[in-house]
Structure formats: C-alpha cells, structure tokens
C-alpha cells in the first residue's frame, strides 16, 4: 500500500514470504557475526588495553585447526545461502503453466501494458490475485527494469529481446511499480501502480475497461498486411507457424533452437541468422518496418496458433 512510513515492505505475492524467510536467515547469520565481531573487538580492546608502556604481550602463533574451523563454518553457511537462494530463484524464473500472460513495453519514461484480450494500460497494471501472471516484456529504447517491491520481483526490460518474470499476487491492494534500471532524465518518474484485485472484481474491470483489439487479432491483421501468408502457409516456401511456439526447431547448421519469443523476434528482423533445415534463406527482413509494439503483436498472434489452429491463410 502506498503512503505511510514503514520499516519493512508489504508481502503481497506467493514468493514474497519465501524471499523474506531467506532474508531473515541471512539477517540472523549477519547479526550473529556482526555482534560476535563487535563484541570481541570491544571486549579485547578494553580488557587488553595498554596499561604500561613496556608491556610485553605474549606472541601467540596461529593454529591450523582454528583457521580451518573459521573457514569451514562460514563456508557451510554460505553454501546454505546459495542453495536456498538458487532454488527459490529457479522457482521465480520459471513461470507455471497456464499463467495469465501480460505484455509490457517499457519506454522512456512510461510503462505500457497489454492484456491478452486487448485491454491496454499506461503506468497502471490490473492483475487478479490468486492466479499466476507472466509478464513478457521488451523495451522500445534503453534498458529499463520492471520492479514491484511488494511482490519481490524484478526483471530488466531490454531492447532487442524479450524478458519474462512471473508472480502471483495474494492480497488485494495497490502496489508501487518502479523502473529499477537508470534510463535517463525521468527515470525516477517512470513509476506505476499495480492494482491487485479479487478475481470477480478483476473480471469486472476487464469487461468495463476500454479495450482495443486483442493483441493476437491485431497481430493477425499485421501478418496479413505484411504479406507473410505468401510463404507461411500449408505447402508454402516457409516453415509452418501452426503449433510452432515452444517447440524445438532444427537448423541448417545442425544445431537446434527453441522457438521462444526471442527466436520469433530474430526470425522477423534478421531471418538469415538461423535457417531452418530444408528451407531456403529467402525470407526478407522486416527490420525498420515494424516497431516494438507491432512485433509484440505479431508474436502474440503466432503464439495463438498454438496447437491445431488454422494458420494465417
């Protein structure tokens, strides 16, 4: 929630509590060692303070077992931190199936969000609670970063590629959205609000919010306008796009690649970079002809060709 002074952020997502738990462990370890060192230094400095100028303190040699102990104990502790952190991170970086996909475009100095049914938002993002949401994001200009402290999620938004982050909100409320990667003059102003709503209210909002066309449908129009069906059709000169997204594509070079958003983007802007086995390198590049938003719409369309759907002819 905005507005009032606090010392610890609100936890409003499924992983927030888990991140805070790990944070608590690290705080505990840090407090322990900080207190230990401060206490030892204080006690030693006072207890062994110089009382006369010709004091001759004992010259104590180090012991190997002591050195090994204070190497191994910290080593064990940091390994625990690593494993715990890595497991949670892995979970944070892998969106669950069936997540609600929302597209985000960051540009100096605002956020543009598109819901799959076509609702558009500027600097405000409505999401349901209790349902995973996956953000697919790209930038139109410089690197930005999508950061919602209450959800404990952050991911850079990079021009020239798509990045993902997912979260599941747990508490209705309004939460800060910050841009967390310096992006120029109004970086501090590139903020927004994430509005988490109960599912029924969210549905209501979706219905009532002024909606443009769904992303995939705009994408389909673009697909046709740009002449893609000329080659991308059944028995065409180009690979079929039906059910393509997410599959493994064999390339002429012998390597394979996963057909994710970045692959699709590259295939549209720089088609010669990767040639699919059995096809000729004849696709023209659309670099300079479409902007980041249109690219996202095309990709949304291709994704919608999921399994067994009609292609664009």
């Amino acid at each position, binding site marked *: 929630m905005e507005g009032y002074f606090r010392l610890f952020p609100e936890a409003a997502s499924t992983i927030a509590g888990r991140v805070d738990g790990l944070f608590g462990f690290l705080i505990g370890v840090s407090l322990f060692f900080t207190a230990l060192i401060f206490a030892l230094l204080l006690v030693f400095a006072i207890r062994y303070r110089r009382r006369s100028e010709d004091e001759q303190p004992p010259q104590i040699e180090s012991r190997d077992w002591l050195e090994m102990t204070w190497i191994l104990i910290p080593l064990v502790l940091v390994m625990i931190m690593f494993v715990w952190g890595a497991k949670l991170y892995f979970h944070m970086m892998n969106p669950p199936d069936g997540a609600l996909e929302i597209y985000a475009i960051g540009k100096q100095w605002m956020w543009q969000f598109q819901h799959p049914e076509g609702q558009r938002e500027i600097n405000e993002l409505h999401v349901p609670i209790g349902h995973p949401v996956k953000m697919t994001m790209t930038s139109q200009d410089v690197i930005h970063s999508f950061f919602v402290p209450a959800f404990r999620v952050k991911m850079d938004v990079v021009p020239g590629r798509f990045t993902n982050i997912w979260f599941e909100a747990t508490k209705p409320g309004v939460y800060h959205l910050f841009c967390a990667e310096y992006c120029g003059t109004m970086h501090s102003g590139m903020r927004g609000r994430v509005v988490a709503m109960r599912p029924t209210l969210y549905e209501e909002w979706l219905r009532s919010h002024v909606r443009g066309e769904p992303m995939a449908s705009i994408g389909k129009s673009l697909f046709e306008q740009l002449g893609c069906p000329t080659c991308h059709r059944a028995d065409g000169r180009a690979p079929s796009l039906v059910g393509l997204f997410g599959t493994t594509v064999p390339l002429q*070079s012998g390597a394979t690649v996963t057909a994710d958003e970045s692959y699709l983007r590259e295939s549209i802007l*720089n088609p*010669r*970079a990767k040639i699919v086995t059995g096809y000729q390198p004849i696709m023209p590049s659309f*670099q300079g002809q479409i902007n980041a938003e249109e690219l996202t719409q095309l990709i949304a369309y291709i994704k919608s060709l999921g399994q067994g759907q009609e292609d664009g002819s």
Partner: protein
Amino acid sequence: MTKSRSALAHHFDNLGQQYEASTLGMWAFLLTEIMFFGGLFLGYAVYRSAYLEGFIEGSHHLDAILGTLMTAILIGSSLTMALSVHAAQVGHNKLLVRFLLLTMFLGVAFLSIKGYEYWHKYHTHMVPGFTFHYDGPHPEIVRLFLSLYFIMTSMHALHMIIGLGLQAVLVMMAWRGRFSSEYHTPVEIVGLYWHFVDIVWIFLYPLLYLVG
C-alpha cells in the same frame, strides 16, 4: 666501443637486477595488452557465433591476398627484429642498426598496405559511420563485421606505430654506441613488444581475412 656511462640506474644494485626488472616489466605489460585485445576478441567471438553467415559475407570484402602479404611482411619483420637482438647480444652495433632499420622498413610497408586498404574501403563506402553504403546480403552484420575489422586493425596499427617509434629510439641509441654485449636491455624488451604485436596480427589475419 662500449659506453656504460649510466647503464646502471641509481636504484638498482647491479645490472643483473636491472635486466631482470626490465624484462619482467615488459612481460607484465604484454599481459595487459593480451587482456586489452582479449576484450576485442571476445566481442568478435560473441558476434561471430551469432552471425556466422554475415561474417563470412563480410570477410569476402577483405582482400585475402593483401592480408597474406601483410602477414608475410610482419613475420619477416619479427625475424629481422630477432636478428637485431642477436646482433646486440654479440655487440655488433652496425648490424644492430641495420636490422633495426630493416624491421622498421617492413613495418612501414605493412602500414602502407593497411593504409591502402583503409583508403580503398573509404572510397567504396565500406567504412561504417562514414557514408557507409552496402547493398548486399546481411547488411547489418557486414556493417558490424567491418566495424570490428576497423577497430581491431586500427588498434593493432596504433601498437605498430608505437613499436616503430620505439625502434627509432633504439636506432638513435645504437648509433650513439649506447649498447654493448653487456648492456642491450632496451633492444630485447622492444623485441618482446614487437613479437607480441606480430602475434596479435597472426590471430587477426585468419579471423578477419579467412572466414568461410
């Protein structure tokens, strides 16, 4: 005729220590040069693995024959440099000067050919950032390749020019009889530097001229 008037610097105890320090110093410096060029090679490697076809296309726009000629000239100059070091070691001053001049001549020859290459590229509008115009396949990647070509070869050329300057200083010092079989450390360390510059080119040549 040898002159070791101030061959031993005041802060060293003996010539052996001074020699050890100078040589170690040059090796340490060359290590930094490896890291410097290494960064460029890394950038090259990243983009080549992503855009092999474009790199092949770009490489075709470089003259492999000129490249081979330049490589031969540079290797030759390393040979003459090694010979000048040897001449210094046995105290043959005149031979030392001659081999140094020959090395410099070969270095200038290399740079002249490179200069011609650059001029030619400029005239055919193949210098990114300066009226670059290219109609063939993979235009952005060819542009990227040529950018890397210019940056890497001009960095190398800059190091060669510095090397030539160092060799000129050596020639003057040798002419004045500053070197002898007891003391010729500057010749050796400039030799090390020159061999390094040669080795960098030996990597650049196939990576730029012989792709695909």
